[in-house]
């Protein structure tokens, strides 16, 4: 029964490729010839110790950081120089490690904002009014309500987003990104601070989205979540890809165990 409603969450997934990314902050090399390939219908987990460069890689993909060298391609097209808002319009959506809610908007308004199209958010549309715009806005509201039901936050819809708990804010971010009809969804530590039942909701949602063909990637420290949700795991350490493959393959690797124990080469 739930299936029908969620057909509309995502459009068909897209392929994203980051190739040979180099990026350093001053003298600190955060990413070193780092490559990552995300594919439709596949959930990729990026894991690695603290400071490995996982968030930096997500920032490069989302366009918040420009790499020193290397390129980012979406369905083959080079988007390396594209600003974040244009990447989002192509369906590349990301969330933040530390949730960034729009605190002055309610939870519901956070979702409305993400879902409202450019035609209805034009200032002239505000002055001209019009039934067509009102109907479009109501459709966005219905979709927002559906997503809040899915993540179990209907009761908090009208709360200012700043008043939500840390875990609720993380869910808000995921739901908000889904309002934009993503083709590629990149989540930075989606379960951090999220209670176990809600983390399970998130796991189911992620799996459903991938089954529908969405391209999903996430950074995560919770290994149970990684094992349950990811099809493909990439291990990052000191800005380099150390290993990649299935969860079992990757966690059996000597290098990976060393990296987590702090004995990386």
């Amino acid at each position, binding site marked *: 029964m739930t299936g029908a409603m969620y057909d509309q969450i995502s459009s068909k997934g897209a392929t994203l490729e980051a190739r040979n990314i180099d990026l350093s902050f001053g003298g600190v090399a955060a990413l070193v010839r780092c490559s990552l390939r995300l594919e439709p219908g596949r959930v990729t987990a990026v894991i690695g110790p603290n400071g490995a460069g996982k968030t930096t890689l997500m920032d490069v993909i989302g366009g918040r950081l420009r790499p020193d060298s290397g390129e980012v391609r979406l369905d083959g097209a080079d988007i390396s120089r594209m600003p974040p808002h244009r990447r989002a319009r192509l369906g590349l959506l990301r969330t933040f490690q530390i949730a960034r809610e729009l605190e002055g908007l309610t939870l519901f*308004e956070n979702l409305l904002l993400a879902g409202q199209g450019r035609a209805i958010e034009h200032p002239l549309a505000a002055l001209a009014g019009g039934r067509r715009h009102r109907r479009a806005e109501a459709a966005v509201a219905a979709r*927002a309500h559906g997503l809040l039901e899915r993540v179990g936050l209907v009761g908090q819809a009208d709360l200012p987003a700043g008043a939500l708990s840390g875990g609720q804010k993380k869910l808000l971010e995921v739901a908000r990104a889904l309002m934009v009809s993503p083709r590629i969804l990149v989540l930075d530590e989606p379960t951090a601070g999220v209670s176990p039942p809600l983390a399970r909701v998130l796991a189911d949602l992620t799996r459903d989205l991938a089954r529908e063909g969405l391209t999903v990637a996430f950074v995560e420290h919770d290994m149970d979540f990684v094992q349950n949700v990811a099809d493909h795991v990439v291990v990052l350490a000191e800005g380099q890809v150390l290993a990649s493959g299935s969860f079992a393959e990757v966690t059996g690797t000597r290098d990976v165990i060393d990296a987590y124990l702090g004995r990386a080469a």
Partner: protein
Amino acid sequence: MIAFLVTILTLVAIAAILALALNLQWGLCGMVNFGLVGFFALGAYAAALLSLAGAGPALALLGAMVITAACGAAVAALSHRLAEEYLAIVTLGFGEVVRLTLLNESWLTGGALGLPGIPSPTLRLPGPGGEHVGFLVLCLIALALAYLVVERLARAPFGRLMRAVRDDDVVAATLGKDVVRVRIAAFAIGCALLALGGALHAWHFGYIDPSQFTPIVTAYAFMAVIAGGRGSNPGILVGAGVVMLLIEGSRFLKDVVDFVAADQLAALRLILIGAGLILFLIYRPQGLGREYRRSAASFPTVPAPASS
């Protein structure tokens, strides 16, 4: 007494328009405008010069609004590469440039002597001072229209867009919003409203000179927005009224306090206004009103919450 009241109400209406404009720029979109008085002056001079050149009031007003909005758009566009805090400096600089231009380009602006004899529109109402009441009615109509525009923008999807840019522009961009365009639009619309206030000011006095456009005008607008509640248009109407009543009402201080010299009294007035604002901020830091938030159940497509 009636004449005095009419004058005060006219000034309150103009101040309220300025406060609504600032609320759009700063209250809703987070763009601090310390050069507000510069845009106000630009609008006043543009409307005055056009009126003096024989343009009708509608054309003069339209011209003033377009010119000022274009300058506002340019300022917003030029400062988009700078960190947010720098907009304060850029707008402050803009205000100063306007002031110096008005003083020094006497061939156009009359310099320090200003522009006298500005023809102004009014409604010819019967009775003594009917034309003043008529002008007040025009100002109130302008205020009502300005309020409607700002409130509609605030409640529309564009309002959410402005508030999102204010709260976190990185998030707005991450969701596909063109932050620079939103800022330019909000700032330009606000500047058009500042020009409306400027035109009414020029018409009201019939004479303008640079000494009427001091930074205190900017300060009053900020006071009105802070007292009224950032983001809340109804609150700001009240805030502007309260601030102007404090300012104008404290003129009567000289009748009560007759033991201080006039120049000291002027300083005392400012101290009192400042103290009033501080007390207000201590007891009601969020201001009188709260910005509009669209509730989920207000949409026909969203089922009402089960409880209540």
